């Protein structure tokens, strides 16, 4: 009797192994995030891109958030071994781990965002033209400021933010080179209290437009603006004004979805190569969020200038490549 049960069990087990394989027809895409998906910024936009690809193309998705750098390699390996077709590392910091694992798993494709590192045949990068976001943050801030002092509050000084800062300074100078800009870093993308203190210190220094570039910590900057008078905030990455339309004039929204969608489509068509995908305003991956309560703060001429500049950047007439440091 026991022998019979054993034989049946072995047969059932073997059948179940085979059935796992037959369901693997959909593309599987995984994403590894350095931070939390609730940060209204860097990580949230990437998470939304992943959800977007799931709903648009019906791929199976998975993700890891708050990943610590010691785990990068093992997580890349895990997804590759589980048969994922595309593993995305969200941020240039993932490139070393990706390159290493890519050598062993040649069938898996790897994509690093915000970087220009590639490796034959299966590691590609894509980057948003952060200098473009920064440029328009600078232009709009320059139009808005009445005290002629603008400040930026960043989390950490990482390459995408460095590029954004360079674009920002170029944007401010383009409109009015007399405006004083102050760049600060709190050192953390989650320390809301510090970001609020920084914003308050800036407000005490007569800065009336603040560029919020600290992901989750931006909420602290917004609260500081709410407690003061006539302070205007411009956001980055996500649409900050959606929740706080009374202090956030606009945001430079960076839609990773366009980039991720493009890459997954290419994989589906078999066109994936190890190149650097450059995405910017031309592909509508960077947009200016609606002004909402501040509709009338900018004059008609100013809005037209902004529109013209957007067209020039889209067509390439204004080239911000020199501001991309890496």
């Amino acid at each position: 009797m026991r022998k019979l049960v054993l034989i049946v069990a072995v047969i059932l087990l073997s059948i179940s192994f085979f059935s796992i394989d037959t369901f693997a027809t959909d593309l599987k895409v995984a994403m590894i995030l350095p931070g939390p998906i609730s940060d209204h910024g860097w990580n949230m936009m990437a998470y939304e891109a992943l959800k977007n690809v799931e709903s648009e193309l019906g791929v199976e998705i998975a993700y890891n958030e708050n990943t610590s750098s010691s785990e990068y390699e093992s997580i890349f390996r895990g997804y590759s071994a589980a048969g994922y077709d595309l593993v995305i590392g969200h941020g240039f910091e993932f490139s070393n781990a990706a390159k290493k694992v890519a050598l062993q798993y040649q069938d898996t494709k790897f994509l690093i965002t915000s970087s220009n590192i590639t490796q034959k045949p299966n590691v590609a990068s894509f980057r948003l033209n952060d200098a473009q976001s920064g440029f328009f943050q600078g232009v709009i801030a320059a139009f808005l400021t009445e005290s002629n002092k603008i400040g930026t509050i960043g989390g950490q000084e990482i390459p995408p933010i460095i590029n954004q800062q360079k674009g920002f300074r170029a944007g401010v100078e383009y409109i009015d080179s007399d405006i004083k800009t102050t760049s600060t870093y709190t050192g953390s993308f989650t320390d809301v209290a510090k970001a609020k203190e920084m914003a308050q210190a800036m407000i005490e220094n007569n800065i009336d437009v603040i560029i919020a570039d600290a992901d989750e910590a931006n909420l602290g900057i917004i609260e500081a603006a709410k407690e003061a008078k006539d302070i205007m905030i411009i956001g980055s990455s996500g649409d900050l004004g959606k929740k706080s339309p009374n202090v956030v004039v606009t945001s430079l929204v960076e839609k990773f979805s366009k980039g991720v969608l493009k890459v997954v489509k290419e994989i589906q068509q078999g066109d994936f190569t190890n190149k650097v995908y450059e995405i910017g305003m031309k592909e509508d991956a960077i947009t200016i969020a609606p002004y909402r309560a501040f509709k009338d703060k900018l004059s008609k001429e100013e809005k037209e200038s902004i529109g013209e500049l957007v067209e020039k950047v889209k067509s390439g007439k204004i080239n911000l490549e020199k501001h991309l440091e890496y």
Partner: protein
Amino acid sequence: MTLEVIIDIITNFMTADLRTATPIILAALGLVYMERSGVVNIGIEGTMLIGAFIASFASWKLNNVWLGLLIAGLVCSFIGLIFAFLVVTVKADQIVTGIAINVLGLGITTTLNRSLFGVDNSLPEIPSLKKITIPILSKIPIFGEVLFNQMGLVYIAMILVPVSYYFLQKTNLGLKIRTVGEHPRAADTSGVNVFKIRYITIILGSFLAGLGGGFLSTGILSFFSEDMVAGRGFIALAAVIFGKYSPWGVLGAALLFGFGDALQIRIQAAGSNIPYQFLMMLPYVLTIAALSGFVGKSSTPAASGEPYNKENR
């Protein structure tokens, strides 16, 4: 720069210093009680985070910030109870258990925050602490504004410093606590219940840590944000050592650190060319300098960190 402007700057600066130091003062006071009885609670960071979340959530649900803070303190006392059970009764390693509390704190607050408020959190209006101006005294130039025009919990923190000093140094229970931390066997033989004392200090200390975390989410800010304690629990641990395990020392250490932090933020905001990394080092450098130059030898309670075992000879 007129005198008025300078006075304004100094006043704003010192007000900010005391305000930002308050969560650290409260947590560090809690730690002083625990450390004096021989318990090292690394889990203070996780406890503060839970306090921050509960204070914000309870304040919202009950529409009363003080009730919210009270409940935060009580929930953290319960977390303290769990910690006490593990390190005093089960005699688990205090450091490892503390780290576990930190992981628990971050995980549970993040999960609850997302499920109760949603990943895309739309922040509701949460009742928060308002400034309470004490009449007459707040009119004193500079110090009046700094010391007597703050939020209620800041006053409580300030009062708790001399109260804790008096309690630890001049009362019977305070003496028992100190003995348990220095020489638990001697305390045990003279009839002091070492376990009970440690349970008391851990629960009380965790209550204060909860208030400290709660001040972040209902005083300095009016909402909860994931991982918002951002290492302040560890600063409190350092403050206890720099403050030589005494309430007044801890106040000084917290204020010194807050001074450095407020200073570096203002230097950055004024548009300095100094790389921000050096400025961010400022509070830490200041505290190290103070420790090496002025503080002298720090006296750790002799039985710190070791579980008390009645059988050991």
